């Protein structure tokens, strides 16, 4: 499964790079001149499903902008237990927290499916931030949102039991589709991956979901989770 992190930028890639930047919410209001400056310094890269993009503890030298596909960021605790910190998809970026602090990457990022991304050297980003204040504002907004996300994760893991975490997470990701409240499942959304995100183990998660199914609150399907009773699920999330 070869990674191709340093291919030269082709003309066709420039269009792709521009399209990718247009999907990054934090860069939406940047002027064309700024987007061009970013685009010219980005390098395309691809990773196959299962490949490691960056390792926790490695020097944080690049940020990555995801063009297509899902990745997961995991952190290994001192006792060896793995906790998923976040799942990211096209239009999202990671690595900036390491670049701006000069620290190592705090998480290991792994491709969950074949992905396309763009790498930007940290030194280049620092240079662009100094030259273009709107880039600095975009990065500050992104880092601020990341802090808020981690505060929420701490609350989830520290203050809620497993059932409440499941309920809270399902409601946070629920969407109305064809008259049903559902949580879509990606091909890689296995019980193991869900358990890693929820800070538990597969057996405990399986029992929790079975109990919620038995109570008529939801039903697990291969491609989605159908929520029949959001009110009861909300109550289970208040623990």
């Amino acid at each position, binding site marked *: 499964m070869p990674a191709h992190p340093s291919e030269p930028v082709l003309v066709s890639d420039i269009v792709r790079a521009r399209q990718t930047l247009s999907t990054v919410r934090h860069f939406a209001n940047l002027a064309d001149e700024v987007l061009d400056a970013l685009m010219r310094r980005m390098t395309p890269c691809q990773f196959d*499903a299962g490949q490691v993009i960056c*390792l*926790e*503890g490695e020097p944080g030298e690049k940020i990555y902008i995801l063009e297509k596909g899902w990745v997961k960021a995991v952190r*290994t605790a001192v006792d*060896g237990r793995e906790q998923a910190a976040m799942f990211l998809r096209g239009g999202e970026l990671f690595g900036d927290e390491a670049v701006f602090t000069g620290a190592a990457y705090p998480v290991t990022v792994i*491709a969950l499916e074949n992905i396309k991304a763009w790498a930007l050297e940290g030194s280049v980003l620092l240079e662009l931030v100094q030259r273009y204040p709107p880039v600095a504002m975009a990065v500050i907004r992104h880092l601020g949102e990341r802090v808020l996300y981690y505060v929420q994760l701490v609350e989830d893991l520290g203050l809620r039991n497993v059932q409440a975490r499941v309920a809270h997470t399902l409601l946070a990701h629920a969407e109305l589709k064809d008259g049903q409240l559902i949580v879509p499942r990606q091909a890689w959304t296995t019980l193991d991956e869900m358990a*890693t995100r929820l800070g538990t*183990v597969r057996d405990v998660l399986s029992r929790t979901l079975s109990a919620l199914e038995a109570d008529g609150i939801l039903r697990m399907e291969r491609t989605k989770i159908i929520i029949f009773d959001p009110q009861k699920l909300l109550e289970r999330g208040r623990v």
Partner: protein
Amino acid sequence: MSIDETVRLEILKELTKSLPHASNLRVGVIGGIAHLGGNLSNRDEWGLAEAVAHSVFGVRGVVNRIEAPDAPAPSRKIDLDFLKSDEP
């Protein structure tokens, strides 16, 4: 330089000695846990890299995500020493 960074550089040095032909091994260290990535050509080298990292002073555990034929998937869930409980 942090202790983790010192340990990381020591692991890289030892890997260079033990696997001189390996060109793209990657190492990260946080809290004394060494994370290995990159590619090797066979399972024996995969195991050797892990053993080398383990042998470095200051390493408390090794998460081996190196790609090699017949080696465990780099993306697998890692539990180095996890005690299962109902309410972690």
